[in-house]
């Protein structure tokens, strides 16, 4: 039979109809769809039993409680701990990225030694410790030949550093700069806390309360609780600072002043309070304070210096007076480099309201007793001025240290004028205990990496800014450290033993156990039933009892609101008048630099984590160039437009950036983020933007001799 047209068409139609009835074709399309998404190089999920490990974060000094979620023993996510008074279930972007940092490419995988060609080559821990011992033994007994820079403000590890250094005859145990050094000039013992939760009017001078300052997550919780959705706010927040940063943007009112002018405005407010008849008979120096303020900080003078209209200052004073529980918080916008004048002036307003050691006021918090024999008191360590020391070394006024131990700190990046710091430590045997390959590690002669806080035991004592004394432990959420790392505490103990210095402990865990043991001698409670601010408001907590180590090592938080010692109330008239800034304007560097320190950009010792990069907006970084912010009027007066490239020049260096027009920056100011411009680390953080620390200006505050740089000024020009 010949195949004619008709039978061909019949056959073809039948064939098509037939295929529609067979599942083969549909099945193969489905399989193709699945297999085109099934590439072996895309990681598969691994399953396993789920668990949580309660711990305390060490990525910044805020000391938040974290729950590390694990699956099959692998940490997978960090969450805020609802049972921790410093986080209450909240978390900051840096803490949220903590687990992924375990595997950041920047991690140092084991001990290393710098070679003649400048590269780092792996060595064993035995060799590394022997090397450290040898270097320290060479300096034994030489005064201040060994120094230590610690970025851990609240850890017991500092006791080991100061005791080891003390054993070697050195006094040089320094903390990275923070607010507590200024606070220590006001209060010689203990630290200053702020009972935000019970305040109904919070006036913040400078401090970026809701981001990079103090107990940020707790502050945010208090702010959130005071602004319930769908109801009237129970507390008003006013921010006095250069920019609408996180705090300035969220506060109920923003008053813009240049960095460094906070104290002048505070005394301007005090002027109105004093004129209104407020007294502080409990302070011995009330009359001296009153005369000083009334004579000097007149509305006209304050307006000339700060640019804030007199009515606005009077309004602030009126608001303060009408509040039941006003709280005034001093600080610097970058939580470092502020002077005593601004701090003491703002703090003095609290004394006028007599809110010291009362609910909703400022608190004097005790330092927990030291446990390592030979360790320095925390107050002594806090009071040491690292920046002044580094400047002294660079200028040749102070002898160069032979060995410098750097722990959880990145001084070659995050101290003002990093080039001067590098010069000061040039020729010093630099030992880095850093977890990550940061700028300091890149220059170090010996790398002794410590595990991340998710892999080690550690502790957090009362972070600066907290309204209560507290203690909680950091515990490993993973059985074995991922890399060949060793907790620094154990390294220090081993080296001390080899040097014949008896620190009294065999391991760092034992040091922590001893620390917990001394808590039982203090008046404290666990925060499981009563929160510290509730206790402050009058709810009586049950005293902590039983086996403290067992309870705390399982995640409990110990807290205390006991007034540690009677404090003599002073308004600080002497120190305020001695440290008052001169009136002279600096026209060489005409623009005020409002540096910003946000947890989005990492912390002082952590570069922007990979998981925080998507948070940066198109107007924060483009490719490898970052933005500095100014308002349109400022930009116009310097002939600049949005997206123009500019250079910021300080006395010792300059930075390249692009212009972002942001109207939430004060007049004649340029706002610039800290934390960009890393040169070490990994591809996620390296070569992004420029390092603003380079353009900061360090000056010595008269009267306190403190190194100050929060009020730096720059020149800006189109690049």
């Amino acid at each position, binding site marked *: 039979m010949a195949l004619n047209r008709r039978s061909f068409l019949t056959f073809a139609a039948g064939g098509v109809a037939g295929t529609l009835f067979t599942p083969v074709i549909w099945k193969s399309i489905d399989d193709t769809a699945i297999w085109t998404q*099934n590439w072996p190089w895309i990681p598969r999920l691994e399953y396993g039993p789920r668990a949580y490990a309660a711990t305390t974060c060490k990525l910044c000094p805020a000391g938040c409680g974290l729950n590390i979620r694990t699956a099959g023993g692998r*940490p997978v996510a960090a969450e805020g701990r609802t049972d921790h008074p410093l986080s209450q279930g909240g978390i900051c972007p840096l803490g949220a990225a903590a687990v992924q940092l375990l595997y950041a490419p920047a991690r140092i995988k084991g001990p290393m030694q710098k070679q003649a060609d400048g590269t780092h080559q792996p060595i064993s821990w035995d060799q590394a410790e022997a090397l450290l011992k040898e270097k320290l033994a060479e300096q034994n007994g030489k005064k201040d030949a060994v120094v230590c820079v610690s970025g851990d403000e609240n850890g017991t590890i500092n006791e080991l550093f100061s005791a080891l250094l003390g054993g070697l005859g050195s006094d040089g145990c320094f903390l990275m700069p923070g607010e507590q050094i200024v606070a220590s000039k006001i209060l010689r013992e203990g630290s200053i806390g702020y009972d935000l939760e019970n305040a109904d009017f919070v006036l913040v001078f400078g401090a970026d309360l809701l981001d990079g300052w103090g107990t940020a997550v707790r502050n945010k919780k208090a702010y959130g609780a005071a602004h319930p959705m769908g109801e009237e706010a129970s507390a008003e927040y006013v921010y006095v600072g250069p920019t609408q940063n996180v705090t300035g943007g969220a506060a109920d009112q923003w008053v813009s002043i240049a960095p460094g002018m906070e104290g002048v405005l505070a005394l301007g407010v005090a002027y109105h309070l004093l004129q209104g008849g407020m007294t502080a008979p409990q302070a011995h120096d009330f009359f001296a304070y009153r005369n000083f303020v009334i004579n000097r900080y007149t509305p006209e003078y304050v307006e000339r210096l700060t640019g804030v209209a007199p009515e606005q200052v009077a309004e602030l004073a009126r608001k303060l007076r009408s509040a039941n529980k006003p709280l005034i918080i001093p600080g610097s916008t970058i939580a470092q480099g502020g002077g005593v004048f601004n701090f003491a002036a703002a703090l003095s307003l609290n004394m006028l309201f007599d809110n010291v050691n009362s609910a909703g006021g400022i608190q004097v918090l005790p330092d927990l007793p030291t446990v390592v024999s030979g360790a320095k008191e925390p107050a002594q360590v806090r009071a040491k001025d690292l920046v002044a020391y580094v400047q002294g070394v660079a200028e040749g006024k102070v002898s160069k240290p032979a060995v410098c131990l750097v722990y959880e700190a990145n001084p070659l990046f995050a101290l003002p004028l990093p080039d001067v710091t590098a010069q000061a430590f040039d020729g010093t045997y630099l030992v880095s205990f850093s977890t990550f390959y940061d700028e300091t590690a890149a220059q170090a002669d010996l790398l002794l990496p410590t595990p991340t806080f998710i892999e080690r035991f550690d502790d957090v004592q009362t972070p600066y800014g907290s309204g209560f004394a507290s203690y909680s432990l950091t515990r490993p959420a993973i059985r074995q450290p991922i890399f060949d790392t060793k907790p620094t505490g154990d390294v220090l103990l081993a080296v001390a033993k080899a040097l014949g210095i008896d620190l009294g402990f065999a391991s760092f865990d034992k040091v922590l156990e001893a620390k917990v043991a001394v808590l039982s001698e203090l008046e404290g409670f666990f925060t499981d039933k009563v929160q510290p601010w509730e206790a402050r408001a009058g709810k009586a907590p049950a005293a902590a009892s039983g086996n403290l180590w067992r309870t705390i090592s399982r995640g409990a938080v110990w807290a205390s609101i006991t007034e540690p010692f009677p404090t003599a109330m002073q308004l600080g008239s002497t120190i305020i008048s001695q440290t008052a800034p001169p009136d002279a304007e600096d026209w060489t560097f005409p623009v005020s630099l409002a540096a910003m320190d946000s947890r989005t950009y990492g912390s002082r010792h952590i570069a922007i984590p990979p998981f925080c990069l998507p948070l940066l907006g198109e107007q924060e970084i483009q490719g490898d160039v970052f933005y500095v912010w100014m308002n349109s009027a400022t930009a116009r007066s310097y002939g600049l437009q949005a997206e123009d490239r500019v250079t910021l020049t300080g006395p010792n260096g300059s930075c390249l950036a692009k212009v972002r027009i942001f*109207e939430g920056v004060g007049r004649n100011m340029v706002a610039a983020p800290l934390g960009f411009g890393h040169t070490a680390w990994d591809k996620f953080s390296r070569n992004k933007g420029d390092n603003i620390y380079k353009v900061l200006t360090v000056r010595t505050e008269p009267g306190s001799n403190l190194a100050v740089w929060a009020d730096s000024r720059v020149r800006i020009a189109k690049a």
Partner: protein
Amino acid sequence: MVLYLKEFKIKWGMVIDLDRCTGCGACMVACQAENNIAPPVDASNKRYSLTWLLVYQLSNKQPYPNHDVAYMPRPCLQCGKPNCVPVCPVIATDKNQEGGIVSQVNARCIGCRYCMAACPYHARYFNWHDPVWPEGMEKTLTPDVSTRPRGVVEKCLFCHHRYMAARDKARIEDRDPNALAEGDYIPACVEMCPTGAMVFGDLENPEHKVHKLSKSPYAFRLLERLNTKPQVYYYSKREWVRKQGDNYLEHETVGGV
């Protein structure tokens, strides 16, 4: 136009307080970790970065010193009348499960991106490249959300796996999985928010906070005039913020007080 209209007894939704959001971004990081989104090396190239939840900065556009700023976290708004669903040729995205969450089945997606064109909120993202985690970091993947290859669209699902887990838990505890209490099911972003700016719950359940809050005169939805009926509400006492929610013209007034 939507092809069908299904009404649900449960509508999971959020009310986000734009006066309380400080724009810190903790929600965004929590979202990436929870949903296994790979970290980009250059996140400044927004075409290629996947941000299921994105925090926008709003400005009242007034010059200094009258400037005001607000931050607006934008998850997938889980529209009541989603524009993305009817355009999908392969039903990879759908809205037919009780709860009203708009689904996204990655394995079904053919990457045509019609849904991205249709979504007025830019809530959908396309995988131009295969996801890459730095060596070892793949160990931090949660066991809950599959990784997606290049060529598919993805978006926020209100942490749907947490919804499933909450329903399972209710069943095990002999409770009604269709009557979850407030707090039984919360997406990662809401749980982590340090100021508590995001509230989550069943919009239809009077016992849940969102029910009342979404009816507040200060509550609004984005581009309400498009009639997409999002299940995410925003809340602000500031009129300029509410106005920006719907691209109002100069002379137009806005609802609320």
